[in-house]
């Protein structure tokens, strides 16, 4: 009887879990383990040499000054993208939760940039930055826009930030709206009774109670911008002169163009550790601000 039951349970396990586990193992688990192993070998496509080399690849990562420059470029890009997209999203969300006519359609409208992928996003902004803005700049004498932003490293940096923030803001806005609508009306009323001004209410009531939404939004924007690839490829293609290559762009080039799988993989893991560390630290710090509602 007991044996029968065990057999039935095994059958259930494979019926309900089998397909998922096979796909998950073959697509995620095995490549993950192989990937970690790969970083300790000399593997490249040409030599097919899998000999063990210890931490040499990781040392190589930190001696590769191009990668370090690009990592720093990525960190600056993430920093400004996260701040701008979240500030913009929060402002729009605030405005859309104060009883505006046509709220539903406004929300729909502000979300639209999220329907397109990074490739289309990049080409869209590429034509704006390289054609439309210089046209306007020359016509109206705005010197800031007279030449294409994509031909200058500093301006191309901001082009990347603006295109990313434009898309992300609509996404984060949705989450902020949910967070702000979750703040109980009576808490706000009580604060008003106590004579708190609008700004005080915003800062010490709404923002505080919406902390879970803030944590999620910063987490999302951090991880999405740290891993940007498509946009980078279509908007700047790493140019001018490879000066706007974000970390993932570099990793893809290293692995699939230079065929240095071991170093490329070590760089991917370093990137992962940085993202995880930054994301965990921010949610730890922000959660401390949370109050029980």
């Amino acid at each position, binding site marked *: 009887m007991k044996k029968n039951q065990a057999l039935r349970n095994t059958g259930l396990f494979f019926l309900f879990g089998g397909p998922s586990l096979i796909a*998950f193992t073959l*697509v*995620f688990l095995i*490549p*993950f383990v*192989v990937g970690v192993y790969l970083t300790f070998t000399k593997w490249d496509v040409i030599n097919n040499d899998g000999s063990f080399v210890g931490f040499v690849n990781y040392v190589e990562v930190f001696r590769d000054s191009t990668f370090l420059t690009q990592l720093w470029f990525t960190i600056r890009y993430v920093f400004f993208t996260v701040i701008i997209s979240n500030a913009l999203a929060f402002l729009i969300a605030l405005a859309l939760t104060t009883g505006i006519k046509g709220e539903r359609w406004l929300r729909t409208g502000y979300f639209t940039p999220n*329907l397109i992928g990074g490739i289309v996003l990049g080409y869209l902004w590429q034509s704006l930055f390289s*054609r439309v803005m210089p046209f306007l700049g020359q016509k109206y004498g705005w010197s800031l826009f007279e030449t294409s932003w994509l031909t200058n490293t500093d301006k191309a940096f901001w082009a990347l930030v603006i295109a990313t923030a434009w898309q992300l803001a609509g996404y984060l806005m949705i989450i902020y709206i949910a967070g702000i609508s979750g703040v109980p009306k009576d808490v706000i009323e009580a604060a008003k009774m106590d004579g708190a001004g609008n700004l005080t209410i915003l800062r010490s009531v709404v923002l505080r109670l919406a902390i879970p939404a803030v944590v999620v939004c910063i987490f999302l924007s951090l991880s999405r911008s740290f891993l940007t690839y498509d946009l980078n490829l279509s908007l700047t293609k790493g140019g001018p002169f490879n000066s706007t290559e974000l970390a993932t762009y570099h990793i*893809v080039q290293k692995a699939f163009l230079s065929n240095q799988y071991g170093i490329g*993989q070590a760089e991917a893991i370093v990137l992962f550790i940085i993202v995880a560390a930054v994301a965990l630290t921010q949610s730890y710090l922000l959660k401390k601000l949370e109050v029980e509602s």
Partner: protein
Amino acid sequence: MLARRSFHFLKHVLIYAGLVVFLSPFLIVILNSFKKTQYFVENPIALPDTFSFANYADAFDKMNFLQGFINTLLITVLGVLVIILFSSMTGYLFVRFDWKVNKVLFFIMLAAMTVPFQVIMIPLVMLYGNLGLLDSKGILIFMYMGFGIPLGVFTFHGFIKGISYELEESSFLDGASRFRTFFQIVFPLLKPVVVTLVVLDVLWIWNDYLLPSLVLLSPANRTLPLSTYAFFSSYSVDYGPLMAGLVMTIIPVLILYLVLQDYVIKGISEGALK
């Protein structure tokens, strides 16, 4: 009172004007998709003299739009279908049977959700390439399944936990099997989470570039993001058709979005705040 009313008015003006500015990149692209490249270069913000669909016909051919559209549709629909089907079953398994192996597997899947694709892509391409399994739509769908399962299982797990077991018990008393009970009693209750997951997964798979760019090598297999890229890198000066090409890639998702907008918004906010 007057001050208050004018503030109210000003707020409306600002938020609507903001939306127009926000969406102006789209407007400019649509506008220029009807113009000859020459007129775009001369004045990208002028209205077209005549509305011509020539750019659309041109882009449709050069991008091989129909092929790309069918490929993307096939991969997205099948990918989302297998993710929903199998992750709901596994989520159910993990909730209803608290075996040790289930707990361990669930934990591994949770941990997997934090690992970015970048960490998997190199060994993935290496392993599947060595086995000669690249350049197949079937394999790509299988990969989307593998990458989509953890979020699916996590989401269904959270929802199924809240469903009472009594309904299922009465079904068992009627002699129904576990499998039948799941599809007849439990699955219909999962509709809200299914919608959330469909939204998140469609937006992800439809627009994904990096994974298909590594897996699908032959032009006949290209998805829309891949054909957009190929089109732009080979015709980078011909702006008219390029704009039309962008509009055409956006339109299918836009239509879906306008039909399902409330679900999309709900899907995003519930998916995020869980």
